[in-house]
């Protein structure tokens, strides 16, 4: 298997080895070993749940900082949708966009416009598709979750790019023509709310290579932005998207933009898992569209945001209203489609990382052993052994990464004897 890279990481010195993240991880990707959390990288979907719950702020996302833009001759900021919800606005998003010039960027793009393009494109795909429900591509953590836990639903995923990627392609094309620059001299940086987005830049799903060169977390530049925002000097008209495009920042925004009635919009990774289970059972074949987000409230609740997700969502809603609900003309989208690729070029493969062995007979033997061990364990899922629950501990013993003595209850019994 190829080495897998992902964004969420541990700051070892801050971790005190508590079990909070351990139990919240939806893919059981965390273990506590030698008193510190450890992420099993193949299992991590970068949902950022652990970043949100860690009381010691020991989980972070590998990302870029403002220094890293300097190595490019021309610097592009791709402003992510959730950022619009991070400020008390006087109804003009352009003020936020213009702040980025003072941070050192040469040009700023409105990612919500990419969402507008996708609305038109998705609407077309939904009309033509017989498969139900189609699953939105936007949340990369959900796509990875499907690869790992619901591989039979891969064919339901709409195989198109994200607003970030589309905006990056349009931006680079435009800048390269206007300034006669090669692509490698242009740096496009996504101002990100989300570790899974960072991963999707470095290890994209569905395409060979991302057009985005890096990602800078919203929270790492937030205070700088706040200071600039007060009296930002430039006033370029950068805002381009409709209210519908902006609305993609919150759960339900895609379905609203698409004008759908028969859809499911679900936020919070545990809720998403429950609905995917139902889809896999064929119970929801009457639903047209499913948009699922790892984060509560959608991207506006991403772990690298600053503002309370519900307050930010309210602002997004207000902004959507103020920028109107006009969709892009089909002809405008057709023109765009002529210049850039928006469909996925690579097949999405199931990731069989949960399996005990690639040989089924051996896997069955291991499963029997796992069950035997599991029955011996106390079943209280305390997490003290370093595995998220007793079943996972039994699995770790079978895989050879834990021993029965790691169980405190069993050890106590032994000592008592």
């Amino acid at each position, binding site marked *: 298997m190829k080495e897998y890279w992902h964004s969420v990481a541990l700051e070892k010195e801050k971790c005190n080895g508590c079990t909070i993240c351990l139990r919240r991880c939806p893919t059981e990707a965390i273990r506590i070993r030698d008193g510190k959390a450890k992420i099993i990288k193949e299992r991590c979907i970068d949902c950022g749940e652990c970043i949100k719950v860690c009381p010691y702020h020991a989980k972070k996302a590998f990302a870029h900082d403002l220094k890293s833009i300097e190595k490019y001759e021309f610097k592009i900021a791709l402003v992510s949708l959730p950022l619009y919800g991070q400020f008390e606005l006087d109804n003009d998003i352009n003020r936020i966009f213009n702040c980025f010039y003072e941070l050192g960027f040469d040009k700023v793009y409105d990612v919500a416009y990419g969402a507008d393009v996708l609305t038109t494109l998705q609407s077309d795909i939904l009309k033509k598709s017989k498969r139900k429900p189609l699953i939105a591509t936007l949340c990369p953590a959900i796509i990875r979750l499907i690869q790992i*836990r619901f*591989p*039979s639903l*891969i064919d339901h995923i709409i195989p198109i790019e994200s607003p970030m990627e589309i905006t990056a392609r349009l931006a680079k094309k435009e800048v390269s023509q206007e300034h006669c620059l090669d692509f490698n001299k242009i740096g496009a940086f996504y101002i990100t709310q989300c570790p899974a987005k960072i991963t999707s830049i470095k290890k994209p799903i569905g395409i060979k290579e991302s057009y985005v060169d890096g990602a800078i977390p919203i929270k790492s530049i937030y205070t700088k932005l706040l200071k600039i925002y007060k009296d930002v000097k430039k006033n370029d008209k950068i805002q381009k998207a409709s209210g519908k495009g902006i609305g993609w920042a919150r759960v339900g925004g895609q379905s609203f933009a698409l004008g759908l009635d028969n859809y499911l919009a679900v936020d919070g990774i545990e809720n998403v898992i429950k609905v995917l*289970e139902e889809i*896999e*059972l*064929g119970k929801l074949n009457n639903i047209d569209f499913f948009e699922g987000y790892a984060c509560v409230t959608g991207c506006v609740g991403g772990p690298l945001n600053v503002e309370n997700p519900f307050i930010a969502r309210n602002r997004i809603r207000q902004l959507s209203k103020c920028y109107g609900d006009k969709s892009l003309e089909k002809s405008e989208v057709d023109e765009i489609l002529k210049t850039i690729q928006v469909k996925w070029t690579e097949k999405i493969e*199931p990731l*069989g990382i*949960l*399996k*005990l*062995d*690639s040989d*089924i*007979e051996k*896997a*069955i*033997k291991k*499963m*029997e052993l*796992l*069950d035997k061990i599991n029955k011996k364990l106390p079943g209280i899922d305390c997490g003290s052994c370093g595995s998220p629950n007793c079943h996972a501990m039994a*699995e770790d013993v079978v895989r050879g990464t834990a021993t029965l003595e790691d169980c405190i209850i069993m050890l106590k019994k032994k000592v008592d004897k």
Partner: protein
Amino acid sequence: MGSNEKNTGIKLEYEILKDDFARAGEASSGIKKVLRQLGIDSSAIRKTAIATYEAEINIVIHSEGGKILVYIKPDKIEIIAKDNGPGIKDIDLAMQKGFSTASNRVRELGFGAGMGLPNMKKSSDEFYIESEMGKGTTVKMIITL
């Protein structure tokens, strides 16, 4: 769970209670987790999940309670759904799409569309059903790997 007499294999067993809608789906979800860990191909997992889920729902709605047994072997998955009655009067009729004896209360919950048995048959490679009035129904389904 435990070893199946002679060959390599895994046996899973789930008790299904009458009228317990809230727990319906637990068996199929548990089976899915085991199959994923065994590295079973995703379409076989989906078929097994649907077959077990429909069997679970049938036992919850129509029977006095029962059991679901799943035997996993390297070449096939065998599902046996066994209930404690009352039995099916006319199996041919019960196998027809859209036929259901479910009560209005059950239908209001979104179940009882008459697709249970047809879906079970469709999801399995081999399908057997036996029923005796007053005693109960046994459905056996095989999904080849």
